[in-house]
């Protein structure tokens, strides 16, 4: 666990700055040597969401202006989605779905399974960083490119396929299987150790005591 609140805040800021990706956050080690637990990860994600909201609405007038322009290009349903979820979905001519975040860079490729959308991977595409274009404007450009020329967008963007595909529960199943396998291996090692200890104790005994 974090030793101080500053350590937690630092991780939240690193997460918000996109220096690390959500998949990598579980590899982070606190200063006391412990790995980030599931509960701590949830706390980091919640705090990051507040931080992103704060950055997007309170601190950056450019971002507010950009989001206003973006909202003027969206349908009522998409605007509602931004208000409720922080992102919106678009469907392009090929039939593919994309999830766009006005307050973050990665646009995600999503698939619809039943009533829910699941992210398959993310695309990194942005203007020259020296231009300091706000995230809202990047969202505008992604939406316009995807709506008009999806092929060019896919050609220019760097795609990152997520390791964890959650839509068909394969990832959760593999996690469970790995845990069971690890438990069996741990048990086998414990049994072998117990046998070895027993052998050593037997060997140390007087021959008459063994009987």
């Amino acid at each position, binding site marked *: 666990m974090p030793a101080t609140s500053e350590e937690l805040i630092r991780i939240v800021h690193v997460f918000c700055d996109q220096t690390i990706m959500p998949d990598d956050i579980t590899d982070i080690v606190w200063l006391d040597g412990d790995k980030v637990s599931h509960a701590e990860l949830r706390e980091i994600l919640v705090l990051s969401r507040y931080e992103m909201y704060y950055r997007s609405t309170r601190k950056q*007038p*450019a*971002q*507010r*202006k*950009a989001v*206003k*322009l973006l*909202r*003027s*290009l969206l*349908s*009522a349903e998409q605007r509602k989605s931004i208000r409720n979820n922080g992102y919106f979905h678009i469907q392009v001519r090929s039939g593919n779905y994309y999830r766009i975040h006005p307050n973050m*860079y990665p646009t995600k490729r999503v698939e619809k399974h039943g009533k829910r959308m699941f992210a398959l991977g993310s695309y*990194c*595409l*942005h*203007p*020259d960083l020296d*231009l*300091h*274009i*706000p995230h*809202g*404007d990047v969202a*505008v*450009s992604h*939406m*316009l*490119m995807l*709506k*008009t*020329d999806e092929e060019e967008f896919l050609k*220019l*963007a*760097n795609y990152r396929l997520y390791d964890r595909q959650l839509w068909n529960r394969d990832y959760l199943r593999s996690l469970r299987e790995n845990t069971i396998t690890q438990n069996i291996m741990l048990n086998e090692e414990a049994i072998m150790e117990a046998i070895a200890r027993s052998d050593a104790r037997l060997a140390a005994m007087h021959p008459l005591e063994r009987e």
Partner: protein
Amino acid sequence: MTILSILDSSGDTKLTWQHDDPKSVADARKNITDLKAAGYSFFIADGTPADEVTAGAGELEFRRVDVEELVADTPAVPERTVAQIDAESQTVDKKKAGRPARQAVAVPRQQGG
């Protein structure tokens, strides 16, 4: 009047020109050509039906256009004069004013990260 939103570090900068004013169109053509040289792409969002889009509903169609198409493009809905827009802004609540039925956006060159 056409309004072009140029995406930049301030959010966006508006470039406007009147179709019936040759000087205004020439200035706009020069600015847009400079933007094109700097790597910008141009998109037009058209609302259908225009009235519903203006009221905040309806759907927007997007298309990519070149410089000449953008400068020569005339709005599908009747143009309003500046006096009309001012009069409407005084009578209509700004939060419920909806959105323009037609918008043009200039997007800077993108690169994979």
